[in-house]
């Protein structure tokens, strides 16, 4: 994950809310240590080292994360693919590229054993990179922790690109989240749902942006996708999928916006994907912005 997380909790007992948020950040640190693709100490690193040789046992949280990642990979026909670790390294997005290392990818080569709670790869050189879903899943787990403590109104984000809303702020029916710094940027209405944005212009290498098109093994065309979903993990993964392939069929519970980006010219206008919703406010989308 390697990014800044912030929690805004609404309530009257500041001491208690601080204690709850500290517990949430402790949970976050543990999840990050477990799932990070950087270094050699995480469980994901162990999976990458050994899963092509033998089954690797997973804890329940990691099993659920991989299960959801593979589910989105199948539904998006590989537009989201959690096995792009070697490819990301080859394109210079992981800082540890080994020129001689084999580069393999393909979610269909990952096999979960639901009874044994293990994972295996049927192809050597495969490397998980959960960067496009782990941040969302971590936010979902933090939201669950807050709910267990009775917190009813809160906004959580990771790196400003994945957001979870618990309830809505007092006196409003939703949290309004602006999708960019521009005054006329669209706003997402969030109440008990999650939002994620994937933009290929965030980090770039010589070959292009960090969102990779698994079908070509190369950076996807410059674009930004924004997804509202019941969970942040789902929003996170689908935002990556739609950034690479905006013409995918959207699952029913999701709504999304897409924009083709032009680095040296004006960006194309935002366009909604899927069925019309009231989830986004923007003049171009024929929704009224609040004053």
């Amino acid at each position, binding site marked *: 994950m390697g990014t800044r997380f912030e929690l805004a909790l609404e309530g009257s007992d500041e001491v208690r809310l601080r204690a709850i948020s*500290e*517990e949430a950040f*402790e949970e976050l640190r543990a999840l990050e*240590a*477990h799932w990070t693709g950087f270094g*050699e*100490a995480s*469980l994901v690193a162990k999976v990458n080292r050994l899963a092509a040789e033998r089954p690797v046992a997973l*804890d329940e949280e990691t099993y659920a994360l991989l299960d959801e990642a593979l589910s989105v990979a199948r539904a998006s026909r590989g537009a989201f693919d959690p096995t792009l670790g070697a490819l990301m390294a080859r394109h210079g997005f992981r800082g540890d590229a080994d020129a001689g290392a084999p580069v393999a990818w393909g979610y269909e080569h990952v096999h979960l054993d639901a009874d044994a709670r293990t994972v295996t790869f049927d192809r050597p050189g495969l490397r998980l990179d959960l960067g496009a879903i782990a941040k969302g899943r971590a936010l979902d787990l933090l939201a669950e922790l807050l709910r267990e403590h009775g917190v009813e109104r809160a906004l959580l984000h990771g790196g400003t690109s994945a957001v979870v809303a618990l309830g809505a702020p007092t006196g409003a029916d939703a949290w309004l989240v602006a999708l960019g710094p521009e005054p006329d940027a669209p706003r997402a209405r969030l109440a008990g749902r999650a939002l994620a944005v994937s933009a290929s212009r965030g980090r770039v290498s010589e070959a292009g942006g960090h969102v990779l098109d698994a079908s070509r093994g190369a950076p996807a065309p410059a674009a930004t996708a924004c997804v509202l979903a019941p969970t942040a993990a789902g929003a996170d993964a689908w935002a990556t999928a739609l950034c690479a392939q905006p013409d995918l069929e959207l699952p029913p519970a999701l709504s999304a916006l897409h924009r083709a980006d032009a680095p040296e010219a004006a960006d194309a206008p935002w366009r909604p994907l899927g069925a019309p919703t009231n989830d986004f406010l923007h003049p171009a989308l024929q929704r009224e912005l609040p004053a």
Partner: protein
Amino acid sequence: MTRSDRRDFLQHSLGALAAVALTPSLAELAPLAGRSDDLTVAIVGAGRQGRAMLQELSKMDGVVVAAICDTDPGRLKKALRRLRGLRGYASVEELLEKEADVGAVLVATPTHLHKDPAVAALAAGKHVYCEAPLAASVEDSAAIAKAARASDKVFAAGFLARSNPVYRLARSFFVSGTLRDLAYLRAQDDEKSSWRVASPDAERERLLNWRLDESVSLGLPGELGSHQFDAFSWFLGAYPTSVRGSGSVRVHDDGRKVADTVTCELGYDDGLRLQWASTLGNSYDGRYEVYKGSMASFKLAWTHGWMFKEADAPTQGWEVYANRQNFHNDEGITLIADATKLAAQGKLKDGVGLIETPLYYGLADFVKCIAEGASPACGAEAAHRSTVVGVAAARATVSGDEVAIAAEDLELR
């Protein structure tokens, strides 16, 4: 040979020299490598530390966490959700009765509640890893250490500097006289934290906030400082003979009586002084220890370590090619564990620290000692001595008086 070839060659050569002479075995990363039988363990305490243990053990091949125990139903339920097949118990007695196949028990309860599970597990013939400090009182600590001494099983304590590869490497330099004459020692453990735990249930919340309960808590000097005091004692081969301290609530003015900011000064019988500070109000520079010698200094920060050589320090040649980091006006030589492996992988670069967490190495040492019948990095008697020092520092901080630590206080009687 080009200039860069020469540099790479020398870096590899340096790595090889350092690794042969100074670094621990890479077997620590796979403590049960090559063994066919799994080690089955149980964890007592499903709080923050129990969860961390579960996470580190999940990365070790050949170790199976079979059961977990906690008196708090909420924490136990949460722990059981983390690993399929994990069996939960509300008492240590029940766990020990029903989990006959468990070979080792890891004690991660609040400090003042270590004694009963540790002694019971030893009595049941289990290997025991106990979090540090061993206890909140000298009497309880001695009871655990005596039970460990009477047992033929492995007993290891969680004073983690002793199993930390960075610290082992630094200590090898230290004992060879690299620092020469010690001027003074300094350490801090700062974090931004309330130390408070929330729970929907008032009575459970009171129990979970044991670190803020002045009737049982050793406060910052005992809970945090004892780990650093232990590191100094291990390097020096000597324990402090006196400690004085002061503490107050500077930041978290929420009704607590346990100080959130503390300073201590520990004295050694040769006149050496250790200045230690800790606050829960500011995280700048975190946790580290500094050894100031006439020829060099160490700054050891648990996952990273550096040596700063004085201008008149003798050179051994290899320093020219060592990995370095800048700190304001100084340049530190990075103390890198497993340098050979990292150099071979082309990863001998700035900012390199421990591959795993300090807790991983502590648990790996415990597991390896069980497999090989060896003595752990921190056994019962060493842990007892550092617990005594931590208790003395806590007493000195609360009372404001200087507390003497006599040699006989450190012995098991």
